[in-house]
């Protein structure tokens, strides 16, 4: 009897913690399918696909029977330290589905007379998470396209390959690692509306050299391809511009004690420490680095740092130590009437303040995919749709001059669709995210194309 009581108690605690965990997910906005259901469409549809030759497409077609929804999926970081990034992007996709009917009314619209469901998977912001999520999605033959991933580590050589092997388009709103769209590593079914970090790294280097007038810098990055790629892009451009890199340090994203690393960096007395990481490492770098580095040393982070939890964890700016973060300059497109008058109010009403800037990229990504579906899907006359996977990918890659929320979208053959990118440098704590202190304008902003940078 006693044992039974204890087990009952144990079960209750476990159940309570699961409920609590679920509540936590909701709080951060991890809602399920925007259209209120993620049920799988009936397979074995009889539609012949009209004029589409599915036999000729090595990856076949997706059949969407009349009355069934078009299944879109997202593979974004919706748990752990970077949940703010993925849930925010999911909101962007949900708003795109909402806006299919031309209004933000929390009522989803349709594509070619079909509802759109969104199956949300977690990329875990890691290669393992990307593998698990992509494998789950690749097993569902009805998924038309995937918006994701949040983190480059989940995509690079993992999700881009797993989904690409099945001919499923993976379209990312926030992967910025240069490798993903490089000649050597690009997977044919991978594209992104996020900027390439070659541009972000170049603009930060330009800012440090020309605007701050500082010529020595150290870089510190975690093990993620995102941080590694961005730090490398910065170093190349900084040295090409006449700067000197004093040291290159690496930390682990789970490190809490950065004291020894900063002590080591401080020995070379750099004027700038560039740490394009994620939180909590960004916040820890600022607080611990400021204790150790001499007064006047500037720290710079990137868009992975520029989010609310950094503000939560650091509080007021630390005297004598400026911190900046680079990010797509949202003010460049926030001046737009559509963003200000329609999109942002709808976002705020449905989900609260944005926790990152990439929801707009996700909104654009989803819209480009919807346009491509409309362009290539063939209706057999009774509402049954046939979508050729290769044709869909080709239609997305053929996007040119699309006026999106984040600017003009034109895709290159290697999948970079944000080819003309405006990057802003924001001084802490005037950040354009929840908790940021007005004025949240960038202190510097520059626009470059991929062709402009090294």
């Amino acid at each position, binding site marked *: 009897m006693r044992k039974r009581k204890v087990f009952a108690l*144990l079960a209750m605690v476990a159940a309570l913690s699961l409920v609590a965990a679920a509540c936590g997910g909701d709080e951060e906005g991890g809602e399920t399918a925007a259209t209120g259901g993620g049920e799988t469409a009936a397979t074995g549809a009889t539609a012949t696909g009209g004029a589409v030759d599915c036999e000729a497409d090595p990856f076949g077609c997706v059949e969407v029977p009349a009355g069934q929804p078009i299944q879109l999926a997202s593979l974004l970081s919706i748990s752990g330290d970077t949940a703010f990034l993925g849930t925010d992007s999911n909101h962007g996709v949900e708003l795109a589905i909402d806006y299919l009917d031309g209004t933000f009314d929390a009522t989803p619209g349709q594509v070619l007379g079909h509802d759109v469901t969104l199956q949300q998977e977690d990329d875990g912001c890691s290669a393992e998470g990307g593998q698990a999520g992509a494998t789950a999605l690749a097993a569902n033959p009805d998924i038309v396209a995937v918006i994701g991933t949040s983190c480059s580590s989940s995509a690079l050589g993992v999700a881009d390959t797993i989904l690409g092997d099945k001919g499923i388009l993976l379209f990312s709103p926030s992967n910025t690692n240069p490798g993903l769209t490089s000649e050597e590593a690009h997977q044919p079914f991978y594209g992104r509306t996020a900027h390439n970090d070659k541009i972000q790294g170049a603009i930060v280097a330009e800012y440090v050299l020309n605007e701050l007038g500082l010529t020595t810098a150290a870089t510190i990055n975690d093990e993620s391809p995102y941080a590694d790629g961005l730090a490398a892009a910065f170093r190349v451009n900084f040295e090409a511009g006449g700067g000197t890199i004093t040291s290159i340090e690496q930390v682990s994203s789970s490190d*809490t*004690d950065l004291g020894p690393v900063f002590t080591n960096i401080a020995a070379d007395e750099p004027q700038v420490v560039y740490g394009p990481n994620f939180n909590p490492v960004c*916040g820890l770098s600022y607080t611990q680095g400021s204790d150790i580095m001499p007064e006047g040393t500037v720290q710079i982070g990137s868009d992975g740092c520029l989010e609310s*939890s950094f503000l939560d964890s650091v*509080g007021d700016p630390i005297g004598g130590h400026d911190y900046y973060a680079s990010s797509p300059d949202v003010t460049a497109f926030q001046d737009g009437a559509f963003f200000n008058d329609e999109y942002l109010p709808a976002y705020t009403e449905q989900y609260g303040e944005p926790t990152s800037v990439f929801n707009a990229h996700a909104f654009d990504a989803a819209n480009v995919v919807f346009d491509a579906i409309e362009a290539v899907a063939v209706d057999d006359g009774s509402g049954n749709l046939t979508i050729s996977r290769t044709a869909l990918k080709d239609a997305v890659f053929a996007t040119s001059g699309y006026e999106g929320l984040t600017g003009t979208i034109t895709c290159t053959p290697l999948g970079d669709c944000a080819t003309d990118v405006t990057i802003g440098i924001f001084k802490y704590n005037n950040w354009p995210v929840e908790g940021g202190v007005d004025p949240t304008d960038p202190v510097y902003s520059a626009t470059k194309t991929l062709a402009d940078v090294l």
Partner: protein
Amino acid sequence: MATRTDGPARGAQLGRFERVPWRRVILLLLAILIAAVAVIGAYKTLTLPADERYTASTWKDFIVLGIAQGAIIALIALGYTLVYGILRMINFAHGEVFMFGAFAAYFFSSAWEESGFLDSNPWLSMAILFAIAMLVSMTVAILLERIAYRPLRNAPRLVPLITAIGASLVLQNTARGFFGAQSRGFGVPAALEGTWTIFGLELDRIQVLVIITVVLAVAGLSLFVARTKTGKSMRAVAADTEIASLMGIRVDRVIVTTFAIGGLLAGIAAILFSITFESVNFTMGVRPGIAAFTAAVLGGIGSISGAALGGVLLGLLQSLGPALILTGYEIPSAFQLKDAFTFLVLVLVLIFRPGGLLGSDEAEKV
């Protein structure tokens, strides 16, 4: 005849050959090789050209940072080692006991930071924060023992081990559910910012507080275990549970006390960790938990002085090791290898002293 005389002679030679303790010889050679690598690395680092060499002040920073970080790890390691000493079980959820203490104190510290109480009464507020974290960590540790471990007291050893890992995940996700996934800033009184000059050395105030608190806590624990009746009972249960129980010691009560003490120490560590790194989040117990477990093994699991020594040594290895030895070989980004370096030392220690530095020499399966 010749073959007869040859036979035993060859046999004797073979015997001598076989009697050479090859395992020990190889280990000794390995140790000499690694010691040589370390000494040469250190020599090369210390004789770098003057402009590339670390200054004395940088070395002081490495050492003080290492000791302060190691001291916090030592406090958590004591929790592992006490429980192991009594139950022969690794309480993998101990990192989460620590995390809950930090979160409980965070809510008060952030409220007091806003109201100004933290800066107007720094010592009183720190004392209350310590009390809160210790109380909450102790409660979580006791509940953990009561709910997750006691029903499995007589189960095979692997069962409570797996349960401990499960409990750790449950506690982490509970914290995530209640408090959210983001990192939060931990308020630190202004009186603790800046430095104090002690014996001519300029030391960070928080590091001084950390080191003093840990020394007091370890001394207090040692006295408690050595001098009090409960301490004696704990030692008796650690020596032999069955006989202790036959002698009239209430084993369950001793075990709960052990968990409670581990929790109290984790609570102290939680505050020290939070004021050092000024940040709390739901995964904050994982890394220090692993470090503390490593420290406990390094020092000799089950031994109180071993855990304290292991913690400080681990902190020093992580902070000083890469700078002192790897820099000499011009290894780029030497600090990324700090974990590899630390575990190499751990493996070496365990090869030569399977029971850890201050533990018994007998290796024991967990």
